[in-house]
């Protein structure tokens, strides 16, 4: 296991370096450059040059990259050009918000998707199954911005059931203490995930249901629900682990549209806004975090696999 972890970590570092390099190169391709974007239309060429010099942007790209790496090695993710905060503090501030929203959505989606998927599998090809499949695909096929806006329009502005914006508290506790405000943003994310998760769950359950050990369990005299919960479920959860692992980067990267529509500045929005303003340090920082999350997510999925499936050992 330790060896496995070490190896994976080494791989992760390689991938992350690759990611940061890709982002670095892409940033160079952006027209205009950071200085203009940060300093605005007022900036004079002299000011632009001064900005570039101050931030080392006048150095060769490779050198800039190495400098960035060097700082990174010292735990310094850099300082936002635009937001007057260190990248670390920005991430520390935005990350919890994003995680609250997405984790909540993820958990709810999973909690709903598992029984739905199992039920669909058990009643395969029934009307319920078709209905659930159909509904799932409808939500899966709806552009999220459309869905979110419709939710706001119907449930907030027309019906007035829920607030139009997510809770504005700055602490996690504060956010959670306003559950009404979370309904719509979390709901829109849940609807989207639900289709995917329940579909996976359905097929995983279908796979498990036809396994021989299910027959064995029945032959022992176990009832239907016992077989489902004790034998089928656990084995069906294994594929879910992969998809949850894959969801980790989303958990950290945030969901731009949801954040924008529901006035909830998290990682997604931060990334988007800084991307359009060429705030390189923030972009690199977030990419790194998300990249790391991608790698860690894969790793966690593997570990989860090992936990759920005793046959898998690393």
């Amino acid at each position, binding site marked *: 296991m330790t*060896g496995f972890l070490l190896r994976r970590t080494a791989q992760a570092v390689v991938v992350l370096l690759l990611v940061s390099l890709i982002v670095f190169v892409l940033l160079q391709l952006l027209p205009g450059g950071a200085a203009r974007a940060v300093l605005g239309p007022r900036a004079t060429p002299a000011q632009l040059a001064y900005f570039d010099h101050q931030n080392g942007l006048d150095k060769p790209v490779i050198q800039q990259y190495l400098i960035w790496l060097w700082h990174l090695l010292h735990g310094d993710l850099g300082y936002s050009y635009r937001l007057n905060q260190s990248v670390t503090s920005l991430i520390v501030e935005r990350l919890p918000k994003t995680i609250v929203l997405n984790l909540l959505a993820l958990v709810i989606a999973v909690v709903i998707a598992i029984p739905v998927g199992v039920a669909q599998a058990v009643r395969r090809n029934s009307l319920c199954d078709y209905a659930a499949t159909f509904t799932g695909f409808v939500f899966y096929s709806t552009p999220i911005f459309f869905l979110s806006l419709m939710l706001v329009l119907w449930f907030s502005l027309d019906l007035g059931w829920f607030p139009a914006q997510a809770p504005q508290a700055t602490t996690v506790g504060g956010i959670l203490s306003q559950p009404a405000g979370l309904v719509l943003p979390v709901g829109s994310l849940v609807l989207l995930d639900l289709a995917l998760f329940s579909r996976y769950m359905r097929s995983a359950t279908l796979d498990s249901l036809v396994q021989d050990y299910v027959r064995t369990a029945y032959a022992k005299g176990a009832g239907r629900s016992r077989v489902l919960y004790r034998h089928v479920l656990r084995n069906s959860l294994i594929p879910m682990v992969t998809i949850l692992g894959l969801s980790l980067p989303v958990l950290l990267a945030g969901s731009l549209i949801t954040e924008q529509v529901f006035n909830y500045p998290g990682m997604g929005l931060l990334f988007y806004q800084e991307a359009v303003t060429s705030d390189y340090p923030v972009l690199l920082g977030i990419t790194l975090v998300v990249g790391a999350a991608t790698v860690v997510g894969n790793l966690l999925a593997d570990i989860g696999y090992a936990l759920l499936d005793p046959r898998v050992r690393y």
Partner: protein
Amino acid sequence: MAHLLPSAVPQPGAAGAPLLEVRGLRTDIRLKRSTVHAVDGVDLTVRAGETLGLVGESGCGKTMTALSVIRLLPAGGEVVAGSIRLDGVDVLGLDEAELRQVRGGTVGMIFQDPLTSLNPSMTIGRQISEAVLLHRRVGRAAARRRTVEVLDLVGIAHASRRLHDYPHQFSGGMRQRVMIAIALACEPKLLIADEPTTALDVTIQAQILELIDRLRRDLGMAVVLVTHDLGVIAGRADRVAVMYAGRVVEQATATTLFDHPRHRYTEALFRALPERAVESRDPLYTIPGLPPDLTRTAAECRFAPRCRFAQDDCRSTDPPLVPQPDDSEHACLHPVDAAHRLQVRATSASVVALTANRDVLVTAEHLVKEFPLRRHVFGRTSGTVSAVADVSFEVRRGQTLGLVGESGCGKTTTGRLLVGLDEPTSGAVRVDGWDLATLPRRGRRRVRRDIQLMFQDSFASLDPRMHVGAILREPMVIARLGGRADQQRRVDELLDVVGLPREAARRFPHEFSGGQRQRIGLARALALSPRLVVADEPVSALDVSIQAQILNTMRALQAELGLTYVVISHDLSVIRYLADRIGVMYLGKLVEEGPAHQVYARPLHPYTHGLIATVPMADVHRERAKEPAPLRGELPSAVDPPSGCRFRTRCPLAQQVCAEQEPPLAELVPDGHRVACHFPLGGTGAGPG
């Protein structure tokens, strides 16, 4: 363990009230468009303490019959008629809760594949105690105690320590023991074992069958032993029911059945067994035609279309199972009698003389193959699997070398090395004296053509997206042999040779039966007119009747084309039927090699001896007379094989020297019979002989 035994042990065969009585059972499986009449009027009686063998070829409804008894049919399956009385209770009238008490309570069930039949993500202990908790009002601790007890009972050493292990940590044989433990946990009155050993090696199979037998005796259970293997039944069953197409066609005590089969189908089955034709080396009897389509009902004898003795009445009446005076029953209008014994038609293929002085075609010289144990893409190797360790032999033109051994002993690997699919770690394969490895590319290609492989799993070796014509043409296309028309002609020829209609060329592999696919595989191997065909388990996936077709074809082709074979199989009777010489492999080593009849009749290696003694024969008397499984334990790991003689860990004769020195493969007397043993049997008189 003794305190477990129920106080009153009923005697087997006692003419008490039947424990299980199945009458006129009909089970249908409804599909979208049709209905499979999987069980179509089955009558069975099992008495307490008795073993009923249920035999029949694949798809004849054995499993469905067994599952009907505990009403655990697959989706769409339903018992539509008949009655099942179990211990005086009408099973068909039970509600769901009562049924649950029957399942695992009154009836214990063992399934074929011990790997997939256990929940991979639950510990052994919990899987067994689950059964206990479901049927007994006991606490967890008591359930645990009981779990340990049954594990002990089925012979798992250190049971209490292994409760927390998962199935994958157990070997195949141990897993099957666990399955048995689950079935036995609540002391059922009836144990149904559906192909309990099919997935296992012969040595393990013998151990498991013995265990079931012992438990039956000790616990006074009744056992229904479902199998397609007549040999398995021969030694274990008190009574045997033969099924064909959803019906029981014959039922009798084992002795009666094996000595005097009455139903024409039973007779045909026996005649198709290779072991019955070993001495004569006659072609095997093959049953023409196909088993009937179970979605149709017919008012005729189901076997009639394939029966050589069918008369007009067979085609118009559906014969019922008629009780005979000798306590047997059969459903045949024209049963076997002395006058109309089945005669195997003589074929043109004359028996090839055993000539030892033919020239050598292929030589394997000190073949070694080691596989690195890989952990991960970037992982380092942590040890090697010694799959083949210094194996040497030669194959002479027109002869057949048979390789036998337990699963994982390196048979397949040897075969792959021969045909050049894998590169040997060291050693060489010589064809006509040419070392394949040192030959220049073009020459190698030319020589390679002479050796073809017939894969074990015919389906996996045929591209599902190519039609058979393309599959057969491909070797010629690659070798750039002839034009399209020539190739087409050759394809027709090949199909003729293996006995398939020419129009088969336009069909896809999945549209053929297993036997037919195996023939396609054979045809492809023959496409380039090779001199040597390596056949890896050519018939292991096939039913007896189809197996016979393939074996016959192979033999006939050998005679016709002068082919040389290396036949790989774990089934000694197949090897014995086909081979001129037999090589016995054990854990990567060739431990014995010699003329087939000699090896079989006078094995020199204790392992060979054990293997032969273990292989079940479709012969009640020999099976009954057999000593209990002489080969104990399981094959050790090939990653870390035992020092010296690799067999010593399981050898009854092993001594100090066996651990220290590796015995060379040598002839004791110059008769072409070689053995690698410090204490060979017979020759030295030390063996059990």
